[in-house]
C-alpha cells in the first residue's frame, strides 16, 4: 500500500516540564492511495500523541483513511521505549523500544516490532525486526 499527498501538520497542544515534554498533533491530507491494483483519491487524518523524558518514551498515533473504493482503513501505531542511560547532546543516546501496529486493511492486522534507536546530535537512526521477520530501518537528520 502506498500513499501520495500533501499533508498539513498542526501542533494542538504541548506540555513542557522539568525533564519531560509531551505533544498532541493533528495531521491531514488529501491525495492518492494505491493498494494492490486499486488507485483512488483519499482523505487521510491522523492524531499523534507522545510523551518523552530522557529515560522513557511513549507514543501513539491513530490514522484513518477514507477512500472512494471502500478500502477505508484504521491504523493505530504505539511505541514504548526506555533509555538505559541519560545521554548529553554530544553523546550517543540509545533507546530500546517496542512498536505495536494495528492495521484494519492488512491481512496480518497486528505486528509487534522490537527496535533500537540511536540519537547523535541531529542524527537519528533506528532499526527493528518484527516478530514475523520484516525489517524496519529509519534514518533522520534534523536540519
Amino acid at each position, binding site marked *: 500500500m502506498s500513499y501520495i499527498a500533501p499533508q498539513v501538520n498542526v501542533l494542538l497542544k*504541548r*506540555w*513542557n*516540564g*522539568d*525533564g*519531560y*515534554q509531551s505533544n498532541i498533533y493533528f495531521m491531514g491530507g488529501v491525495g492518492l492511495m494505491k493498494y494492490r491494483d486499486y488507485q483512488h483519491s483519499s482523505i487521510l487524518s491522523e492524531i499523534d500523541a507522545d510523551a*518523552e*523524558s*530522557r529515560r522513557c518514551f511513549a507514543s501513539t498515533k491513530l490514522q484513518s483513511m477514507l477512500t472512494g473504493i471502500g478500502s477505508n482503513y484504521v491504523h493505530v501505531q504505539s511505541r514504548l521505549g526506555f533509555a538505559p542511560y*541519560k*545521554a*548529553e*547532546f554530544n553523546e550517543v*543516546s540509545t533507546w530500546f523500544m517496542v512498536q505495536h501496529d494495528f492495521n484494519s486493511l492488512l491481512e496480518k492486522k497486528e505486528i509487534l516490532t522490537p527496535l533500537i534507536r540511536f*540519537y*547523535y*546530535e*541531529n*542524527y*537519528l537512526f533506528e532499526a527493528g525486526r518484527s516478530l514475523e521477520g520484516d525489517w524496519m530501518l529509519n534514518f533522520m537528520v*534534523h536540519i
Partner: protein
Amino acid sequence: MRRFVFILTLLQFSLGQAAQIQVNTKGMVCGFCAQGIKKKFSSEEAVQSVDVSLEKQLVTLNIKSSQDLSDERIAELIREAGFKPGKIKR
C-alpha cells in the same frame, strides 16, 4: 608608561570578554531539542556560541562583546523553538 600599558591591557581584556547568559529551559529531552535551540540562537547577530546541557536543562549563550540580547527576546526564542523558558541568569 608601564602602568599605562598595564591599565590599557586590562581595559582591552575586560572590553573583549564575551558575556554569558544562562537560561533554564523546560522540555529539553533529546538531541533534536538541543539542535533546535542551537539553531534558533545561532541565527541571532549578538550570539557568539550556544551550549546546551540536557542534564541541567540549561542553555548557555555566549554573547559577543559590546552586544546584548534582552530577556524578552531570549524567552521569545525559547518559546519559538518549542520549549518553556525559566530563570535567566546574567
